[in-house]
């Protein structure tokens, strides 16, 4: 169900206080407010819808349990991102340990080859739909191919629209580190995607 509008900052603060006091319906409203943003972020980090759902759920459960310790020094949303980021990075590292030969030839995707939660673009012809799908898969793979520290910053800034300052807080790194990681991430992404464009494997829709 579509929401009427986003919650105001003061609504969020009031709901946080009520949730701290154990009010789960108030917390439910906070989950409603942030679930898509956190899910999208985690999903980009992990490229696996099922793991993304688990991690996003766990992030909210941990947030609820840790709320008494949330003192509002940072905003609720950066605090939430921080919890989600730590959990997502844990999964990435676990994967690295258990799958040292993780291959990009076997992309992590759902059985039908496409993400179930993406809305198909009905305006496109079947051919261009196929090429759009291939292009998106390639972009996802390129993002997954970034080292996790670059991937994190890239997703938060480019796809989630977070500011440098908020990202520095979420990842607990200096502002300069955020900027240099973003710079490196853009360069790497350009390298891998333009290679595919030049080889004619993907197209850029202007």
């Amino acid at each position: 169900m579509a929401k009427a509008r986003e919650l105001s900052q003061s609504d969020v603060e009031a709901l946080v206080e009520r949730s701290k006091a154990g009010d789960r319906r108030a917390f439910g409203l906070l989950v409603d407010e942030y679930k898509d943003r956190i899910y999208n972020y985690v999903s980009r980090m992990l490229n696996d819808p099922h793991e993304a759902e688990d991690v996003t759920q766990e992030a909210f459960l941990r947030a609820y349990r840790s709320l008494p310790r949330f003192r509002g020094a940072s905003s609720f949303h950066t605090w939430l991102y921080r919890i989600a980021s730590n959990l997502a990075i844990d999964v990435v590292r676990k994967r690295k340990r258990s799958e040292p030969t993780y291959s990009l030839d076997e992309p992590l995707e759902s059985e039908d080859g496409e993400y179930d939660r993406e809305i198909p673009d009905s305006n496109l012809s079947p051919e261009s739909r196929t090429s759009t799908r291939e292009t998106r898969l390639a972009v996802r793979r390129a993002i997954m191919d970034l080292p996790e520290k670059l991937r994190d910053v890239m997703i938060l800034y480019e796809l989630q629209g977070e500011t440098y300052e908020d990202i520095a807080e979420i990842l607990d790194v200096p502002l300069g580190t955020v900027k240099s990681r973003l710079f490196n991430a853009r360069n790497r992404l350009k390298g891998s995607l333009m290679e595919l464009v030049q080889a004619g494997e993907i197209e850029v829709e202007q």
Partner: protein
Amino acid sequence: MTCEKVQSELVTCWGSTEQLSVTVAEHLDGCETCRAEALMLQRTRLLLTSLPEEEAPDGFTASVLERLEQEGPARSWLESIGNLVIPVRQPQWARVATVGLVLALAVAGGAMWMGQSNQLPDEAQLATTVPVPSQTLMENAELEELLRRHQTFEVTQPLADDMGVGLVMYTSY
């Protein structure tokens, strides 16, 4: 200006030629390599931002709330205060002792407070809405209004268990 420097500036602005300094713009006019670089960056950005946003699956909020419910009764505000008062890394006994003290004081205070209120509002009987006698908290009416406007989950079955603590089921619309 060197190509290296120009290309570094191009990365920072994603190859956009709109807000470049005069020196960089002049360099681009005369340098095919850097123009190609700018184009590649613009294309990379287009590809990146063409990814559609993904949404949390249906019923997400309800299932988070269900899982919280399974973990036990809602955290009381006393417990919350206990957590706030006692540093997290304090040993368990210190936390328990302090919460015990708070509880003892609260029983007296709570009895007085309950005495003043003839009838609790309906939602106060649910564990999800623990009445908190504090002026800094959002009023129940305000919460109800927010829930009416925003909520995508529903409290379907308030069940009272034998300890008088509400067990609640959640579903999504």
